């Protein structure tokens, strides 16, 4: 039997704090010497502290009390959430690949990216709750069936891109989802469904915070350029941009993958979430946290992006 190195004394840990997202990752790794084992434990603690049961939440919904508009919202949400698994699977793969690229060149960056890839397992698991809750509810409500063909179509994997662009895109995707769910929670009259929307919305905010922290770590390291974060935000907020989702005049027909925001079906009688201003504000706020640069309008965002492009 090989000897396990022993410490002479057990580690004395301070009384347990509330689990939190490490927002300043680059400093935590470079200056405080925090390791992946420590960061992972923090992720695990937060994940555990936020656990909830999809089975119980679905059971708590009084089906007869769900309005016609809410039904459409549930149906759309279930479909949209199908695209999160390929997103998380891809992130796990991309992050590991990117991490190895930095090993030996900038080990702090390698660790930030590995922390991100590691966290993707919690993200994937939490999104599973969203997807299954809404799709199960849609089934119980007798809504239009999601065929296996659609299911498989929505599992298509988004093509790879620069890591900072990817993390910014994911931050924004979580922002759009969170604002939509908050809107749905406000509108619905059925208490069980309201609680579900609130729960899912809170998860999306938490995901956004993680993505922002990882993206900020990359920018803080000096190895990734702020222009990449701005480019993605511009793609969403420019005139006719992605933030308008399927309401845009032109939605790209793609063979490669499904962007959930392009697939929402607005039907008559549906009280559809929009709140474009709220989304915009949160996107500016995310950019500020990621890059330290403040913008407060779509024009300013474009100008700053163009300056950064050079």
């Amino acid at each position: 039997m090989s000897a396990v190195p022993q410490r002479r004394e057990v580690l004395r840990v301070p009384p347990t704090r509330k689990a939190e997202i490490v927002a300043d990752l680059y400093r935590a790794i470079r200056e405080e010497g925090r390791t992946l084992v420590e960061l992972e434990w923090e992720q695990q603690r937060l994940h555990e502290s936020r656990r909830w049961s999809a089975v119980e939440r679905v059971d708590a919904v009084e089906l007869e009390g769900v309005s016609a508009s809410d039904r459409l919202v549930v149906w759309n949400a279930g479909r949209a959430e199908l695209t999160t698994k390929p997103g998380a699977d891809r992130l796990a793969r991309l992050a590991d690949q990117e991490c190895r690229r930095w090993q030996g060149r900038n080990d702090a960056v390698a660790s930030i990216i590995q922390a991100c890839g590691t966290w993707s397992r919690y993200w994937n698991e939490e999104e599973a709750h969203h997807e299954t809750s809404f799709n199960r509810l849609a089934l119980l409500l007798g809504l239009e069936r999601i065929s296996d063909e659609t299911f498989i179509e929505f599992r298509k994997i988004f093509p790879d891109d620069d890591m900072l662009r990817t993390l910014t895109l994911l931050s924004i995707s979580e922002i759009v989802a969170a604002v939509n769910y908050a809107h749905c929670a406000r509108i619905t009259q059925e208490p069980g469904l309201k609680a579900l929307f609130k729960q899912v919305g809170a998860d999306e905010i938490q995901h956004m915070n993680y993505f922002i922290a990882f993206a900020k770590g990359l920018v803080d390291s000096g190895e990734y350029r702020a222009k990449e974060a701005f480019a993605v935000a511009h793609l969403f907020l420019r005139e006719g941009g992605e933030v308008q989702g399927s309401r845009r005049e032109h939605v790209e027909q793609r063979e490669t993958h499904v962007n959930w925001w392009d697939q929402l079906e607005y039907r008559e009688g549906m009280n559809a979430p929009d709140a474009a201003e709220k989304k915009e504000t949160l996107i500016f706020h995310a950019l500020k946290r990621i890059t330290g640069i403040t913008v407060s309008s779509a024009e300013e965002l474009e100008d700053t992006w163009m300056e950064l492009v050079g």
Partner: protein
Amino acid sequence: MPSADELKDYIQKKFSEHLGLSQEEIFGADLTLAALITRSERMANSVDLMEAFARTSNALRREHGLRVRLPALALDTRISKVLEVFLQEVQRQREERAA
């Protein structure tokens, strides 16, 4: 101030520089934006393409004091259409200045 033709040549030259393709390749077959992304080794997606156009616009501003803002363009748009958008905007600003 350069003539309209000179500006057109200038923009075409800049497109070619930033897209990483020859002028003949880009304009000869009047490629769509999707085809440009596929052809160019320098571009993988529409964000890269947006950046190439932004660089062209930046060059116009630095060297000629003209400011072009590009609208969101569908990937099946042909490059001649993008050139047209640039030229219209440039022309409008020239007229404004002359007035």
